[in-house]
């Protein structure tokens, strides 16, 4: 039946279907964010009376002005950028090394290492918080951004290591051997073959870890009391008062919180979009 339709038309039909599917998903992905935006520009008086409408009768930027000028949010953003950036960098370096080891070497205890990585993921966070708090306390790392970075690094290492392992597995061993046979060192094999070919994977890892750290709440809440060291996610909770919630400002701060994450992804885009073929390395 399909054969009856000429190839050109089939292509056209296929790309039309593709666009519809992509558009549907984009709407699904954006709608809650649009709603957050809508709440952030809705005057408090209209919040409930025009709650279910798609766009309020009147809009205001007052919530954004208030968040930027009267709250500590600029400080929280800066803290979050520092913590997430440092976490992403450290995790990607450590996990790339560990993933490379798991991918390229056979050694005793490899299974045990993989099992350990897996095991640490299976316990709900809430149960490890009290012991972690005590350990960090004895190292004088509570109430500090570096303490937070260390915890985030630990939490993100297992996944990042597994991910980098699969990306290293995908690199043909011959390419690496070729460098070694030509008299190159392992370091050269690493920088000429493994690094460029696993770059998309590394960029994906950096992106994930950055956002995971960016949006983490539980540990940031438990570990930090000092307002000057709070992160963005914890800052959001400050809009929840004893008796009511300042929805407008909270949603405005949330929208602002998406900006650094967006910028970060735009920076990574290039590596994910381009992709690399094996040909690029052989040349």
């Amino acid at each position, binding site marked *: 039946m399909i054969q009856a339709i000429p190839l050109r038309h089939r292509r056209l039909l296929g790309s039309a279907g*593709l*666009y519809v599917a*992509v558009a549907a*998903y984009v709407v699904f*992905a*954006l709608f*809650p*964010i649009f*709603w*957050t935006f809508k*709440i952030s520009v809705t005057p408090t008086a209209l*919040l409930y009376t025009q*709650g*279910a409408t*798609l766009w309020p009768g009147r809009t205001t930027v007052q919530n954004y002005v208030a968040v930027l000028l009267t709250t500590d949010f600029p400080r929280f953003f800066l803290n979050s950028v520092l913590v997430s950036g440092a976490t992403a960098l450290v995790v990607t370096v*450590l996990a790339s090394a*560990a993933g490379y*080891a798991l991918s390229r070497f056979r050694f005793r205890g*490899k299974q045990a*290492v993989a099992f*350990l*990585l*897996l*095991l*640490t*993921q*299976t*316990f*709900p966070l*809430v*149960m*490890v918080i009290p012991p*972690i708090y005590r*350990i960090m306390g004895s190292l004088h790392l509570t109430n500090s951004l570096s303490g937070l970075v*260390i915890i985030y*690094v*630990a939490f993100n290492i*297992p996944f990042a290591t597994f991910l980098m392992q*699969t*990306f290293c597995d*995908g690199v043909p061993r011959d390419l690496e051997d070729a460098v070694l*046979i030509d*008299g190159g060192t392992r370091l050269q094999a690493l920088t000429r073959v493994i690094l460029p070919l696993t770059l*998309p*994977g590394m960029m994906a890892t950096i*992106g*994930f870890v950055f*956002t995971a750290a960016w*949006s*983490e*709440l539980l540990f940031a809440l438990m570990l930090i009391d000092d307002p000057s060291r709070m992160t963005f*996610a914890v800052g*959001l909770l400050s809009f929840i008062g004893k008796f009511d919630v300042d929805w407008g400002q909270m949603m405005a701060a*949330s929208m602002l*919180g998406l900006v650094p*994450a*967006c910028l970060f992804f735009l920076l990574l*885009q290039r590596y*994910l979009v381009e992709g690399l*073929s094996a040909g690029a390395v052989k040349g």
Partner: protein
Amino acid sequence: MRPAFARNPLGSGFAARSLRRTAEPWLYLSPALVILVLVLFVPLVIGISYSFRRFTAFRSSYVGLGQYRTMLHDPALGQALINTVWWTAGSLAFQFLLGLGLALVLNRRFAGRSVVQAIVFLPWAVPSFLAGLTWAWLFNPVIGPIPHWLYAVGLQSQPRNILANPHLAMWGPIIANIWFGVPFFTITLLAALKSIPADLYEAAALDGATVWQRFMRLTVPFLAPTIAITVMLRTIWIATFADLIFVMTGGGPAGSTNTVATYIYVSAFRAMDKGYAAAVAVLLLFLLVAYALVLIGMRRRLLPQ
């Protein structure tokens, strides 16, 4: 196997060389492992030790397997286990299928691809409690649009909150979780697709392989290791992920959205018995490890390398 220069002219040779060879992978692994053991594994062991104690306001006492015995006769836990399977399977299946589809689409060239790619990432950057709040808002008939749409297309006789309906409530957090988790699969699978050498596709196309054949013989085998590891980790994360449910329904109505993970939160914070919460967490740990082992075994069978 090794190039000629590996032979040591001093002759002190073999022992030192084999030591270096055994040490090399550990050298690369050790920074990651040290942090992991100190920050996660030690607390994990301490957390497990809580499960043999009973906690009251100011002190705790050793009760052996007492907490585990209590667990055997806890009807709420049985329901939570069933809900956990439901919550995990529902979230995972949709996240994976949408994520894979989207990754395949984004791997092709089309106008506006880079914009779509940037948008696709966005939900992952939203803090989970905020995602929960926003979705709860969307499902609310007074201040959200979804019940009005359901009413308009005739799925509801009047705009009602599905989060208040014990038969449907679980779908609320599941939908929020699908929204939140699709980017994870999209990006990891897209990165894996990007590392498939393009010349393999060209060769297959020259050999006259159809799109479907290329998908089954090239794309799937190349993606399989990434799929295996992401599905496994994601299952574990979803099963232990309580934030969305906690914010959206608090486990209600009538325990209908109570999963093992939310039950642990409730036991630890509201009921204040850290010991019982830890015992339930150990049960979850065993179930998830068993699941992972089954998955790894299956992967070995399917992928003979």
